[in-house]
């Protein structure tokens, strides 16, 4: 997180030194773009807050831990698709599940869909790229995540 602040600060500083007016234009563009997309972010935040209430970490770990591997993969990829959580929550959770005996294959289905498939970020993606692209991209991502999970299973000897 800190490197984002440092990069932004440095970039702004260099920009101001190089050309004050251009920097001002840049800030104006930033604000305009941010304000424009904020309603979509608000929608996403509201959805996230409700979905995370309905599907808390506990439910996820219960379901992923107590199934055979193929139901596990399907459930994991569905959970990963409909939820949205930052890495600093998701990976420690996976670390705990790993110790509990949940396989790498199931966990990779969860983390990869979590990263690539964004049902909750749909309002934002739709604003920029339209409904059609959003749906196709998310479907493709879902299948990529399944392939990743199967590959992980193959390499860790969990598949066969």
């Amino acid at each position, binding site marked *: 997180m800190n490197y984002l602040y440092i990069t*932004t600060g440095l970039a702004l500083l260099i920009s101001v030194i190089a050309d004050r007016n251009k920097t001002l234009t840049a800030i104006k563009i930033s604000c305009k773009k*941010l304000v424009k997309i904020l309603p979509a972010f608000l929608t996403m935040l509201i959805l996230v*807050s409700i979905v995370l209430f309905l599907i808390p970490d506990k439910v996820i770990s219960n379901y992923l831990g107590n199934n055979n591997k193929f139901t596990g993969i399907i459930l994991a990829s569905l959970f990963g698709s409909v939820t949205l959580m930052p890495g600093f929550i998701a990976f420690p959770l996976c670390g705990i599940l790993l110790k509990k005996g949940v396989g790498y294959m199931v966990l990779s289905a969860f983390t990869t869909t979590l990263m690539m498939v964004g049902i909750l970020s749909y309002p934002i993606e739709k604003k920029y790229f339209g409904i059609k692209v959003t749906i196709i*991209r998310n479907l493709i*991502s879902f299948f990529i995540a399944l392939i*990743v999970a199967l590959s992980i299973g193959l390499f860790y000897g969990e598949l066969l």
Partner: protein
Amino acid sequence: MKIKKKHINVLAVLIYFVFILGSFAIGFKPGKQIGHNFMSFSLEMLKLLPCAFILIGLFEVWVKKESVEKHLGKNSGVKGYIWIILLAGTTVGGLYVAFPVAYSLFKKGAKLSVVFTYIGASAICRIPMTIFESSFMGVKFSLIRLIVSIPLVILSSIWLANYLENRNYKIMAGN
């Protein structure tokens, strides 16, 4: 018609906040939990979004269209994908930060397949996240994930771009 839809949205948001505030007032636990979720995620975003959009603004002002076209445009070839994956590696946040960046890249002349590769790659190969991941799951796990997913992301992005270009896809104008 459009105004009507807007009104419904505003109403839904209002109901949501009244519900959350009401829950805190009467101590309704599920409502309070949802409120906490909302707050913690909003804070997460507030830490990221201003910086991300300032960088987008600077990018729009300083980076010339010609140079984006040259390195990420129609004739950029394999190098375009390498550049964009490196750029994606430094992205912070999640998809929700990648979308506005991807949109700006497209407006500056990056080709569609590179733009989609950026979105996919910034989901799966952000460097800080990958390091964090491997500390919990092991380096082998992260490596297999990257080696399998990156080629698939590039191939599917090329396919999606071709598919859309054959159908005269127009990206949303000014979101």
